[in-house]
């Protein structure tokens, strides 16, 4: 089944105001272009699930897309603070944000329970942490094997998950390599799934290496080709991260008005991701060039 579509079409088809939407990717293969399209289409009242926050969280907040956030790390990686987010949490400026906070291990466990259709997942690390005291959704169950009560976190089942990957075939068999994050679990946990990729490839490429598939086609609703869809994050084998962009964001976002200007000019003022990239200029991307380093092929042969 051909599940390819345009990014605007995929977002408008599979996202609804008020949805819980997971955008995953751990500093690598992040669905940035999809987040920008959510801003362009003006969605509101979303709850964003994202383990490690980054510029897109500040941008979605600035664009007033979010009423809530589910996360376990809310800085801009090593580039500094996310000031739009800090204003919301520290000063309820411009309004309060519902923030459901876990550790990375807790988010992993929540997605895993969601993907497994379990009500909860046990987690061993929360004994004595104020995180568990603060969050009423972190509970405990007795251990019928004689140990102490153990903490549990509830399943996370997003309405929509969006992930970015190196490649997929048109049916939605998704392949990724390098740092993988929690994308497979976020995909299986979700009711709907959009995958953006650097390239849609012939299925023969995918099928030459079936262990490389991180999400099988039957879980996928839409496949969208979005080259440079992860910028300013890297895509292994395609382009490097743009640290300058991330650092500049942390400086810019100290000023709430500057965030609004940036969104107006760069996101709402561009019709799509290609136009957004064009505003950066093609020389911009020369800095993100990579060298090639190909894997040694493995033999999948079976009986003759």
């Amino acid at each position: 089944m051909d599940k390819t579509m345009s990014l605007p079409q995929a977002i408008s088809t599979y996202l609804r105001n008020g949805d819980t939407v997971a955008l995953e990717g751990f500093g690598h293969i992040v669905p940035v272009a999809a987040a920008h399209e959510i801003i362009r289409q003006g969605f509101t009242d979303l709850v964003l699930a994202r383990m490690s926050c980054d510029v897109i969280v500040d941008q979605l907040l600035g664009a007033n897309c979010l009423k809530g956030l589910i996360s376990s790390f809310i800085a801009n990686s090593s580039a500094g603070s996310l000031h739009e987010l800090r204003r919301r949490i520290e000063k309820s400026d411009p309004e309060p944000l519902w923030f459901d906070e876990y550790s990375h291990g807790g988010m992993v466990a929540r997605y895993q329970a969601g993907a497994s259709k379990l009500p909860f997942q046990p987690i061993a690390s929360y004994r004595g942490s104020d995180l568990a005291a603060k969050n009423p959704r972190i509970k405990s169950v007795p251990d019928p094997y004689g140990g102490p009560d153990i903490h549990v976190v509830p399943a996370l089942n997003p309405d929509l998950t969006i992930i970015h990957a190196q490649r997929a075939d048109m049916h939605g068999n998704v392949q990724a390599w390098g740092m993988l994050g929690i994308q497979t679990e976020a995909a299986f946990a979700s009711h709907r799934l959009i995958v953006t990729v650097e390239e849609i490839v012939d299925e023969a490429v995918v099928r030459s290496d079936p262990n490389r598939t991180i999400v099988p086609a039957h879980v996928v609703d839409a496949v969208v080709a979005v080259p440079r869809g992860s910028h300013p994050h890297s895509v292994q084998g395609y382009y490097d991260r743009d640290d300058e962009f991330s650092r500049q964001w942390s400086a810019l976002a100290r000023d709430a008005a500057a965030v609004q200007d940036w969104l107006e000019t760069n996101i709402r003022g561009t019709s799509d991701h290609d136009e957004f990239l064009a505003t950066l200029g093609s020389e911009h991307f020369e800095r993100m060039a990579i060298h090639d380093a190909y894997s040694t092929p493995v033999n999948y042969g079976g009986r003759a």
Partner: protein
Amino acid sequence: MTLSAHDTTETRSRDEPSETTSSDVVTSSELLTVHSARALAGRNVVFAGHGLPTLAVSLAQHTVAPDIEIVYESGVTGARPPVMPRSISDSILVPGAASVMPMTHLFNYVLQGQRIDVGFLGAAQVDKFGNLNSTLIGEDWEHPDSRLPGSGGAIEAMAGAAEIFLVMRRHTPRTFVESLDFVTSPGSKKAAEAEVGSMPAGSGVTHVITDLGIMTRFARDEELTLTAVHPGVDPAEAVRQTGWNLQVSTDLETTQPPTPDELALLRETLDPTRIYLR
């Protein structure tokens, strides 16, 4: 920021680098890195962030612990990046690495799975039992004065690793506090005293390496004790810069300055462009 030879027997000021046996000027980063590396002797598997911990593990591989292996939060093991990574999710870590695990394996099987000998952490606040705060500063949890990044994987590293090494660039009463504003990653004592949850696997913070010296703690109910100061540091200064009544070891030692070999490795081999050796 330079230091003349005659200062070595005096109490040096906070912003002055310490000195080595070879009279090279040693930066605070170099000092912390060298002592972190030495503390890794006998350990095999280390969970570390980028920057100082990465450098410390690299130095340990060249000196006290040749077979030590580093695991990054992004799931990468056995990384051999051609240049220093800019973060734990820098994709420069991947080419030529020994493995890249999915996050379920890293968090469930490696961290919670108690496969880590030493986890390196940082924190905004630490107390006398090695409880750590990386969540917020202020009294109102819902509207903190300053909202920090949060746990990330710190809670899991604290609970799952056999030991935690804490590296603190600046030893001050604002960071070494009597009472944390928020206990993000509880040490082994606080965890044991809680009523619910699995007991932590390890000892919590066993080493705190600061710009003034080294604190250690070995048993669950033991406080962090100042066991060494860097050359030229008055132990009273370390006590003054600590927000609780810091215990000083009766066997207080003075740390051995970085050796010429250690410094040469750091400067010429491991971080020649001085990305971290500020």
